[in-house]
């Protein structure tokens, strides 16, 4: 079933969720690696791939938001304590915001360097920020801080999924609890 219902996640939502999960967790490791590597001609292209996959992650979260406007997902399982439900809701909201903010801050910072943001070694993205060392410094700093916050929230999200015994995780895997 493609669409979400009041009781289950459709295949589109689940696919976007798991593809995003693999992509974002992979990007956390990939980004950490390229931030620490000694750059030369042999590995410079890795920055391009980081930007490419970052754009895919941004596209996926936008598609997800749009899809959920068309096909609203089911509400949370009501079995947890109230504070846990509130925490889960807040975590989900923050995850969405960070999944938008992290790639956007990276894109803005890269554009501010004055160097073209080229993805998949083929397409140059629009320059969405002025060439400015101030912008570059501020947005790369924000990119780093928000990435760490995203990593922390992903851990919290995963921990919550395993902690709950109400079928929440099963519903995202199979569609229904």
């Amino acid at each position, binding site marked *: 079933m493609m669409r979400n219902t009041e009781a289950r996640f459709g295949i589109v939502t689940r696919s976007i969720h798991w593809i995003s999960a693999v992509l974002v967790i992979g990007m956390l490791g990939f980004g950490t690696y390229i931030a620490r590597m000694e*750059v030369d*001609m042999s590995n*410079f292209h890795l920055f391009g791939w980081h930007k490419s996959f970052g754009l895919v992650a941004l596209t996926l979260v936008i598609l997800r938001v749009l899809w959920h406007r068309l096909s609203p997902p089911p509400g949370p399982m009501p079995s947890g304590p109230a504070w846990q439900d509130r925490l889960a809701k807040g975590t989900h909201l923050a995850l969405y915001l960070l999944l938008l903010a992290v790639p956007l801050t990276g894109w803005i910072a890269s554009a501010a360097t004055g*160097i073209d943001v080229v993805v998949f070694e083929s397409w140059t993205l629009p320059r969405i920020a002025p060439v400015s060392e101030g912008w570059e410094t501020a947005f790369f700093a924000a990119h780093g801080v928000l990435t760490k916050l995203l990593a922390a929230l992903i851990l919290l999200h995963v921990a919550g999924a395993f902690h709950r015994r109400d079928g929440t995780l099963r519903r995202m895997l199979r569609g229904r609890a």
Partner: protein
Amino acid sequence: MLRFLASILALTIWSATALAEPVSYRLDAARSVVGYEVGFGDDLIRGQIPVAAADVTLDFRSNANSSVSVTLNAAGATSSFPFAEQALKGPKVLATGQFPTMTFRSSTLRIGTTTAEVDGQVTIRGVTRPVRLQAQVFRQRGTDAGDLSKMSVHLTGALNRSDFGATGWSDMVSDRVVIKVVARLDRVE
């Protein structure tokens, strides 16, 4: 700029047989190269910067009457790969939007037999610093011995880009920039 220095050197080197009054030379820009190299990890980024204008006057009786002045078109600089070229011209390195040219003006020469040292002032990003270049002078192919009408001068030197405020990408690209110039000079008749 280096090309001009080269011309000075060449003239001086052969001063024993040379002219008795200041002589002007014209840089053959099409056959001259102002190149640079910077470290990029274990690799080198190479590129060239075109010459916008040059004045070379040489007095073989007195080095003090010789002068070299070169203006480079920084905005036309090239690099061995596109991203480096954008970075080079950007605000953190040459800032060519604000400083489209670089200049060199000679101050003193120290002449050997076929080599020389050229001291001068280089201006990059509006900041002027001293620089010293080593030069070797060659007769151009097809010219006779003692013919100073056409010369090739190879100049090398180095500078630290941070001295000029060109500090961008210092975590990736070396501070030291090696300059390699091949200047081909034709005497103005």
